[in-house]
């Protein structure tokens, strides 16, 4: 009766309701309950340009294995109402054999739903809610999905109890009544798409968004100061950090704009406190001049860019990987620096911690390129391993000679004094300077300091953190990607392997400096290389091509936002290519 087996390893559902209907809360409760039951999964949202009252859909995928991206179709769609639903229904259609539950009072489903090969069941969600004290449509929806996918009421109630705890016992009981009503209604549908049992838990699970994970990773790395100017989809990094920093003796200042926020963190870092800010493309554009200052004055800072669709204001709520160019090439002058990118939500923690380590060790700006698709996704992950770096600035020690803040050293890193240290006074400067830091327009000073800074950036031991190489290493077919699309590429390779088609994955966490040796090593033996990136112009492809030879057959799967490239598209490309 449906395309899936009765016990699916993956189920995707959407709860649709206009803003304020509580669709997101319902999705979050279900995801967390699934996590408590041992499944993996993730939650993303589809929101409109209106801040409230626009369309909202909670998009949830549950999986027996770690899941890093949304499916391209829904197996179950619960519509509290259909307001504006046609806007996203085309981006994520109902699967053939899928189930659509809608309230007859909400009117006819959109054309795309009516034309889909799916079962439409009517359920008076609104009436059910009204018939119960304190009844809420979104809680009825929670009950519907609980029954359809085979979650336990007990687990769901554990989550509801913590979420509604502050509203008192009655609110929790009202919630339970709604959920039970939903369960009962769904039991009568005669149609279920239940999950296969979860694999045994080998470690604790976390439920976290990419933006939160970046914030936490930064704190793990030692960040104790942040300056903030809000921008979608980066604001949650800053909102996470505000109380979190305060709880560990740090501080966050809300700045008047990004010109201020970047310069505030430069000032704080000059004062010895590891510092961070987070922004998105428009803010990064404003920060570029001062990022150059951080490079020239050798002030360690981390700038997180949660990329969205550009250029200009673009589509603020949707994802793209199109800030690679500005992050890598946006500086005037020759400003060596570092750009890194987390390989999915679970990796945000590590990559942010690593970014702080690099910035502090190299006394350099580090740009971390996350994006909306991972920043705002709430994901069930295995508890991340503890990682520890020996992070510290090369300290200034008092000597007899006058202090040289920008002294040439073997590794290019100079001892850095901190205000308060006697004998360590210097003026940090964006002007070309001597080793002591005095302004200079001499040719040799320009050369010496450029070389010094290049030495520290290029000579640093980035270890094996440059990226990942996975899959059948005998395969001559490589999917080469970076950052947030790593998960989709990984799933594509798994799907291909199940069909007996071999391909391997190479994905970069280190975008600048390009890890030449590691990348060439990882590509050795390849005949075909498929570049995969979320950028209209193929920024990643051009960047890599500018740095290494590509003596392979090369193709590119690259596209602008807002539609995220998914595993199936990647698999299709490889399948067709290999069949030729």
């Amino acid at each position, binding site marked *: 009766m449906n395309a899936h087996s009765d016990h699916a390893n993956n189920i995707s559902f959407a709860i649709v309701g206009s803003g304020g209907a509580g669709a997101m809360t319902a999705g979050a409760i279900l995801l967390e309950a699934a*996590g*408590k039951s041992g499944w993996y999964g993730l939650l993303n949202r589809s929101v409109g340009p209106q801040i409230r009252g626009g369309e909202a859909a909670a998009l949830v995928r549950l999986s027996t294995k770690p899941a890093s991206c949304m499916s391209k179709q829904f197996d179950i769609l619960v519509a509290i109402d259909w307001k504006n639903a046609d806007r996203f229904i085309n981006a994520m259609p109902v699967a053939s054999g899928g189930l659509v539950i809608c309230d007859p009072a909400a009117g006819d489903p959109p054309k795309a739903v009516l034309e889909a090969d799916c079962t439409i069941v009517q359920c008076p969600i609104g009436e059910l809610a009204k018939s119960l004290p304190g009844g809420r449509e979104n809680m009825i929806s929670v009950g519907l999905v609980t029954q359809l996918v085979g979650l336990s009421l007990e687990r769901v109630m554990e989550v509801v109890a913590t979420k509604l705890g502050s509203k008192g016992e009655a609110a929790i009981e009202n919630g339970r009544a709604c959920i039970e009503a939903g369960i009962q209604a769904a039991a009568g549908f005669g149609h279920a798409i239940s999950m296969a049992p979860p694999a045994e838990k080998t470690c*604790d*699970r*976390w*439920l*976290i968004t990419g933006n*939160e994970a970046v914030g*936490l990773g930064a*704190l*793990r790395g030692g960040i*104790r*100061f942040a*300056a903030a100017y809000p921008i979608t989809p980066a604001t949650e990094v800053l909102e996470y950090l505000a109380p*979190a920093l*305060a*709880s*560990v*003796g*740090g*501080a966050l*200042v809300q*700045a*008047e*704009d990004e*010109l*201020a926020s*970047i*310069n*505030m*963190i*430069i*000032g*704080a*870092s*000059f*004062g*010895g*406190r590891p*510092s961070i800010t987070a922004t998105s493309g428009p803010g990064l554009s404003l920060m570029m*001049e*001062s990022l*150059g*200052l951080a490079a020239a*004055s050798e002030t360690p800072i981390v700038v997180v860019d949660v990329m969205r669709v550009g250029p200009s204001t673009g589509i603020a709520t949707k994802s793209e990987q199109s800030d690679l160019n500005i992050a890598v090439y946006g500086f005037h002058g020759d400003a060596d620096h570092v750009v890194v990118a987390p390989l999915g939500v679970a990796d945000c923690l590590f990559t942010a911690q690593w970014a702080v380590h690099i910035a502090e060790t190299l006394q350099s700006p580090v740009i971390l390129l996350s994006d909306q698709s991972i920043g705002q996704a709430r994901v*069930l992950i295995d508890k991340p391993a503890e990682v520890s770096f020996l992070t510290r600035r090369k300290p200034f020690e008092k000597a007899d000679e006058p202090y040289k803040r920008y002294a040439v050293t073997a590794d290019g890193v100079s001892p850095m004094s901190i*205000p*308060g240290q*006697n004998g*360590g*006074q*210097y*003026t*940090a*400067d*964006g*002007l070309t300077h001597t080793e002591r*830091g*005095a*302004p200079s327009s001499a040719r040799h000073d320009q050369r010496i300091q450029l070389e010094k800074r290049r030495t520290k950036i290029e000579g640093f031991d980035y270890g094996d953190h440059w990226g990942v190489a996975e899959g059948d290493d005998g395969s001559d077919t490589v999917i080469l990607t970076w950052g947030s699309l790593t998960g989709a590429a990984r799933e594509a390779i798994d799907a291909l392997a199940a069909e007996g088609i071999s391909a391997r994955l190479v994905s970069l966490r280190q975008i600048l400096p390009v890890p030449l040796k590691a990348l060439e090593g990882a590509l050795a033996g390849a005949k075909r290389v498929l570049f995969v990136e979320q950028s209209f112009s193929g920024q990643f492809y051009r960047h890599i091509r500018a740095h290494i030879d590509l003596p392979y057959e090369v193709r590119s799967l690259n596209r602008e936002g807002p539609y995220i490239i998914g595993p199936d598209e990647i698999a299709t490309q490889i399948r067709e290519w290999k069949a030729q």
Partner: protein
Amino acid sequence: MNAPCFKASDYKSDINPIWCPGCGDFHVLMSITKALAKLGRPPEQIAVISGIGCSSRIPAYTNCYGFHGVHGRSLAVAAGLKVARPDLTVLAMSGDGDGFSIGGNHFLHACRRNVDMTYIVMDNRVYGMTKGQPSPTTEPDWDSALSPGGTGLSPFHPLVIALASGANFVAREFSGDIKACTETIVQAINHPGFSFVEILSPCVTFRPDEREWKNQVHLASVPETDDPARAARRIMTDDGMNTGILYRGRRKPYFASVSDEEGDISALEAAFEI
């Protein structure tokens, strides 16, 4: 034990200023080093932060910790530093172009934020470094290659803006009066919150007419006040040449508690466990 005693020269570096002979900024540098000696804090506990311009070259000429940043952002660097390191004495330095034009927005918000630091603007009513263009404080009819015949715009009034935006200490001095400058800088540093001192500092090269300032400045006839309404009344009749402290307010400085302890993040991690 006696506190160590410092001389003005202890706050001066061995770098020779690039300024033109006769530039008012020499006197500002002198006043700052004298004020710091009076305060008696060791040079390593003082940070001098600036933007870009002739005036903004000043940090490297001191023996304090310095930051010579980008054009217009000295206040942001200084605020970040002071919040992160409340133990330091922080001076932010700008020119009229740096502070009121490209950095104008930060000026408003620094007054409003009221971080405990001192902001000294060396106002020569011209862009000196870029060789003589009108700034926000330049007279409307001042002729230049970039704005022939003058801008026709009425000048920006830094003291009015500072007062209206919430600065906690507002003063104007003339660079040539080193004694008064020194004393006002001491007062400004000692006053909690955001202190703003405009120092009229002639650009003898592009505004030779400003050599006359020494004859035009005069001590304000009205004493300082802690009442913003009285300060506002006085400032509306200001001819731009009044010197002295105008306003000393009682607003609470910006507060953020920072600690040198490492901080335990285990509770933050546990919050994500399900």
